[in-house]
């Protein structure tokens, strides 16, 4: 059996799912935000380019060449006429000489001539951005061939991008607000979904712990089909484990019966042979001792094999009724002694293990107390968590301090026991060790033995 492992928070399914969904949410919203932002920026840029193109065409439409320059009548677009309006128009000749600039551009100090690219083919428009002081201007440069003059000219329109930047900022703000709200909403939904989805597992955990404490024998609720296999198998496992233990005990009991009856026959035969000439008294004594040893070894080893351990699925056993039954049985056996038996055991004290193990331990200890005690026996049973503490005091001769260590040595006595010595205490030590507990002998307040065992 493996020791129970403390639950590791890292392995929490809810934590894993929350983390995975959380990461997915961040990645999904991040990518979506980036893509939306880019798309919006592109669409804004495209709108700006289109607008610039239209302004260029408007300019080309009204511009008239005259005396080495250009005459541009009042444009429909009023911003060309207002100084520093943010919309500027320029006309350059093929050599890059400025032929005209709009009234709005009178104050503009910028290398706008550089925008006229001599490599550009007539009929083509190029676009770009130009940074001046604190502003960024989007521009479009259109090269056109003037047939009447057989010459090419550059028509350049610049527009401040402040409105589109403002538009993008507004869009982004909107995007953040909505995405933030969406994140919160999805997180809550995800938490609730997980709770709902993992509910059968939590119920399973609750039922398993109810089985551990003995409140129920098996898993009783209905589970979703994904868990049905597990729960059915768990029930089967619990049942078969209990049946297996019972079968094991029965088999060992039968084995004890079939081994001990021949020993009993031999033993009685030997007693009949007492005084017969065929066997000397020494031989008879030797045979008797060997028979007794065989008997003790059989008993001890069978008991060792039967003993259980603190099983996680063990049903708790109520201690008080069991001790009462045992005390009543022993009162009968030792009726001549008229023992005063004092039971100090609360009704709720429980033993988490096999009932037969507790009965074996308490039986052997109480039997010793009745056997060696004179008038008084006290049984004290208390519980600390799942551990049971059992102390049995008597007013007999007690166990000498020097012998205590020896009698408590695990497995030491069975094979070395002298004839006449019982195996009771050795069995107690063996069973209690199987539960990871300890056995101790002290002197009782009446000067007799006080044997304490602690299970678990």
């Amino acid at each position, binding site marked *: 059996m493996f020791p129970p492992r403390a639950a590791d928070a890292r392995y929490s399914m809810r934590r894993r799912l929350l983390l995975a969904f959380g990461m997915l949410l961040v990645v999904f919203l991040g990518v979506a935000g980036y893509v939306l932002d880019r798309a919006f920026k592109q669409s804004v840029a495209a709108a700006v380019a289109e607008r610039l193109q239209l302004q260029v065409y408007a300019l080309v439409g009204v511009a008239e060449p005259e005396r080495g320059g250009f005459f541009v009548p009042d444009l429909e677009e009023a911003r060309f006429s207002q100084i520093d309006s943010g919309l500027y128009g320029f006309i350059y000749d093929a050599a890059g000489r400025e032929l005209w600039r709009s009234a709005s551009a009178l104050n503009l100090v910028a290398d706008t001539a550089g925008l006229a690219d001599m490599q550009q083919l007539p009929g083509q428009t190029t676009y770009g951005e130009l940074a001046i002081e604190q502003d960024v201007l989007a521009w479009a440069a259109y090269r056109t061939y003037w047939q009447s003059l057989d010459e090419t000219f550059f028509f350049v329109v610049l527009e401040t991008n402040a409105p589109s930047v403002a538009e993008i900022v507004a869009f982004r703000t909107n995007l953040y607000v909505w995405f933030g709200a969406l994140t919160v909403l999805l997180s809550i939904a995800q938490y609730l979904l997980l709770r709902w989805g993992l509910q059968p597992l939590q119920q399973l955990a609750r039922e398993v712990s109810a089985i551990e404490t003995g409140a129920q024998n098996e898993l009783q609720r209905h589970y979703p089909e994904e868990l049905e296999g597990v729960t059915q198998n768990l029930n089967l496992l619990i049942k078969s484990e209990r049946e297996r233990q019972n079968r094991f005990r029965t088999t060992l*009991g039968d084995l*004890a*019966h079939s081994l001990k009856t021949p020993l009993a*026959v031999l033993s009685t035969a030997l007693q*009949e042979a007492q005084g017969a000439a065929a066997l000397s008294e020494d031989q008879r004594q030797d045979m008797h001792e060997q028979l007794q040893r065989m008997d003790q070894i059989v008993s001890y080893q069978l008991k060792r094999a039967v003993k259980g351990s603190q099983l996680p699925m063990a049903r708790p056993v109520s201690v008080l009724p069991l001790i009462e*039954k045992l005390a009543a049985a022993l009162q009968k056996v030792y009726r001549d002694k008229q023992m005063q038996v004092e039971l100090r055991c609360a009704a709720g004290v429980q033993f988490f293990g096999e009932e*037969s193990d507790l*009965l074996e331990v308490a039986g052997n200890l109480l039997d010793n107390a009745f056997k060696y005690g004179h008038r008084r026996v006290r049984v004290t049973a208390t519980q600390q968590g799942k551990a049971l503490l059992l102390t049995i005091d008597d007013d007999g001769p007690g166990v000498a301090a020097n012998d205590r260590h020896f009698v408590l040595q695990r497995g030491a006595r069975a094979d070395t026991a002298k004839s006449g010595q019982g195996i009771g205490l050795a069995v107690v030590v063996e069973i209690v060790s199987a539960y990871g507990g300890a056995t101790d002998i002290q002197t009782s307040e009446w000067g007799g033995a006080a044997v304490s065992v602690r299970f678990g």
Partner: protein
Amino acid sequence: MRLLVVEDEDLLRARLVKALEDQSFVVDSASNGKTALFHATEYGYDAAIIDLGLPELDGISLIKTIRARGLLFPILILTARDNWTDKVAGLDAGADDYVVKPFQTEEIRARLNALLRRAAGFAKPTLEFAHLSLDTTAKKLRVADKDVELTAFEYKVLEYLMLHPGKVVSKTELTEHLYEQDHDRDSNVLEVFIRRLRQKLDPDETLKPIDTIRGQGYRFNVPAKGR
């Protein structure tokens, strides 16, 4: 004293019966629970020895049924399963003591004597009446602190009477509990034994411990000490 021994292992039963007969018990035996129940119900026994692992009707059920039928004779259980679950189950069902296999026949005898004596209400192994004392362990009679020799049958008669003090015991009851079933039951023989016992118990004829109740039987009439 008439005993019922119930044990399914033939060899062991035979040896146990022989050992008990050697101890001057009258012994009936059965090899299964059903026969045992029939015997127990039909005949009066002073005690029974019952093995727990029996075919047909197991020992625990047998004991429960015996007790349920109001039969109160002491029961000693034999068990090969040396565990407290079985011992407690047996004692709880109504048995009075247990012996674990393999056993010493002396142990069986000692336990039986103790059970018989306790059933009669005596706390100590020596039955004491005025200046008479019968040691049931050593099977010895002392009269006024002197050992008095008894034959095996005289002892049986006296022990039976002493274990039923003040009670009228019929000749039939005495023969049933002290003789084998196929034994020649001559009531004259019993009268001879009673007469001899009276002489041994009360040579001066001052105490007159055994009354003859005409047409009914005998009664041990000395009040017991330490009962």
